[in-house]
């Protein structure tokens, strides 16, 4: 675990990211998709915070809001002490180099008409004035760092495999020496045998450059491998935030328990013995969350209070945070 000296690099407090829903010919606003609905956590310097949860629970929206790729609805985001939640224009642009993103689909996030070198150099061109030679040196340095052969500098993205394309995306994200990187499902589109290559690379780079990651994933086994702490989201809210050890050995929120029990283990002797919690039904729509706790419609341990009152996100004696009436009683 992290010692007490660990310093938060990113502090998210009460963050909300709502997307308005418009209807009719007058495009009147009829409601909001509450993609992120009041989440708070810190990310310590040099750590990897895993952000997990099922599709549509708001992971990407949270990651993008934290990097200010969106105008946020409410809340505070501090990066290295600077409040960025309401910065605009040049003020925000100046901070961009510090915080970068690696996307799920390397295919869609790389311009097919640009060479690998120009893709990697794009952020350099935008933020730094380098000589031709210095620029090329930097590109080669980055290609070395992510394990891409320098000979490929003038090739195009489609000439690469999925794993190699993800390396191109990672090199570009590293170009401006960021401190903080949001990795949004960076291995979800890759084959198992390629996933480990990319994960090891991310770990090596973290060590080498002292990077801090928000690692978004629906793969709970990979998050267990990578993350120091884990935040579990359900329908726009963080329901549990704990150290990796606490989260996997002793999950407290009924949703975390169900989620973990649903992950199939590649071992028949474990699979045959495991207790499964099978949740009924589907996740409600984030534009119409239920009253009370968002998980109350599927929770196997639901109580009356859960259907009326939103549980607070409170810290337990062991240091973790949970939003559940069962633990707050």
């Amino acid at each position, binding site marked *: 675990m992290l010692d007490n000296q660990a310093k938060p690099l990113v502090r998210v407090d009460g963050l909300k990211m709502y997307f308005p829903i418009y209807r009719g010919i007058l495009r009147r606003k009829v409601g909001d998709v509450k993609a992120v609905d009041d989440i708070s956590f810190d990310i310590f310097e040099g750590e990897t915070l895993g952000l997990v949860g099922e599709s549509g629970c708001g992971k990407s929206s949270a990651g993008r809001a934290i990097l200010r790729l969106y105008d946020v609805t409410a809340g505070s985001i501090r990066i290295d002490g600077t409040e960025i939640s309401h910065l605009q224009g040049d003020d925000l642009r100046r901070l961009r180099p510090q915080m970068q993103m690696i996307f799920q689909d390397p295919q869609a996030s790389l311009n097919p008409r640009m060479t690998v070198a120009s893709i990697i150099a794009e952020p350099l061109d935008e933020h730094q004035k380098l000589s031709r030679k210095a620029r090329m040196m930097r590109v080669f340095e980055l290609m070395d760092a992510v394990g891409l052969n320098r000979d490929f500098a003038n090739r195009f993205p489609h000439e690469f495999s999925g794993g190699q394309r993800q390396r191109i995306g990672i090199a570009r994200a590293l170009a401006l020496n960021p401190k903080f990187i949001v990795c949004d499902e960076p291995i979800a589109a890759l*084959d198992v045998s390629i996933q480990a290559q990319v994960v090891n690379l991310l770990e090596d780079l973290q060590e080498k450059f002292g990077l801090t990651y928000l690692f978004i994933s629906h793969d709970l086994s990979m998050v267990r491998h990578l993350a120091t702490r884990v935040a579990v989201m359900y329908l726009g809210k963080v329901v549990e935030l704990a150290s990796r050890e606490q989260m996997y050995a002793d999950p407290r929120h009924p949703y975390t328990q169900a989620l973990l029990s649903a992950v199939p283990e590649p071992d*028949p002797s*474990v699979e045959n013995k495991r207790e*499964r919690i099978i949740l009924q039904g589907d996740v409600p729509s984030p534009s119409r969350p239920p009253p009370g706790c968002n998980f109350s419609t599927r929770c196997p341990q639901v109580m009356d209070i859960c259907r009326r009152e939103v549980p607070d996100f409170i810290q337990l004696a062991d240091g973790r945070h949970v939003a559940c009436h069962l633990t707050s009683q």
Partner: protein
Amino acid sequence: MPDGAPPILDVTGLKTVFTTRSGEVHAVNSVTFDLAPGELLGVVGESGSGKSVTMMSLIGLLPMPPAEIRGGSVMFEGRDILKMNPDELRAIRGSRIGFVFQDPMTSLNPVFSVGFQIMEPLRTHMGLNKREARARAIELLELVGIPDADSRLSNFPHQFSGGMRQRVMIAIALACDPKVLIADEPTTALDVTIQAQILELVRELRQKLGMAIIWITHDLGVIAGIADRVMVMYGGQIVEQAPVRELFACPQHPYTRALLETLPHVTGGRSRRLRTIEGQPPALRDQPSACPFAARCRHVLDICHRKNPHITRLNGSHDVACFWDAAKDGLRDAG
């Protein structure tokens, strides 16, 4: 599984080649396997290893051209499916052999109600009248755990969630009481909690209906939980095949071994660093003349670059296609 019962499906030497503008793709190379009645055969392998093309070949679902089946036989109920005419094939598909694909939205027709799509095969294949078909459709939706089945019949596919649509697909596949169900990555697009619901449903259905199932996935965890036997594919070939416990406990092929080592777990020990399989899968441009895994193999021997190993039986029920012998860490004795 009933040992020794004759297989319900018997595939021998299946070869499928695509002709593309940039040359041939040898997608399936001499694939041989069988399926016992009531058995759940898991098929694993990374994308492009030939899982889907194998299954589509054996029931005539591939567009020809570009595909061409260059050899093999698929015996089902005493007849070779590869020799059947299109009408006979259609009669078998969707009645004797059912299918479920990864993305229900591409296989469900968006303009017809779900009820119509379940009732259609019942009327054409089983000759039920409208009333009987409707009753059976309701029964099927209830069987796959869709609440208010009666009123959901008139709903369209987009009115169902992803997990519910996959249940509808399973209901359609089961409509005519098939002997074999082929499920191609049926839970890959679903979230884990929804996947857990579908896996639970399949366990129940097997108990109730007893059909044989071929379940394709790239997720070894899913296989560990539901399969009786596992077939591992790589580069268009079966590289290993064994009962599920045996395969996970004593994997023989270096690819299977590496794959199992590279996977992180949610329980048990946690390794500091993941083991990787360096390199890329093969391009399948030609008929294989060497082991398809040789370039990435930790135990590669000289011979592996010159010859493609045949799949051979190690013991009662475990087959492997590899020159390397795990037990002696060297060349396998010619058996």
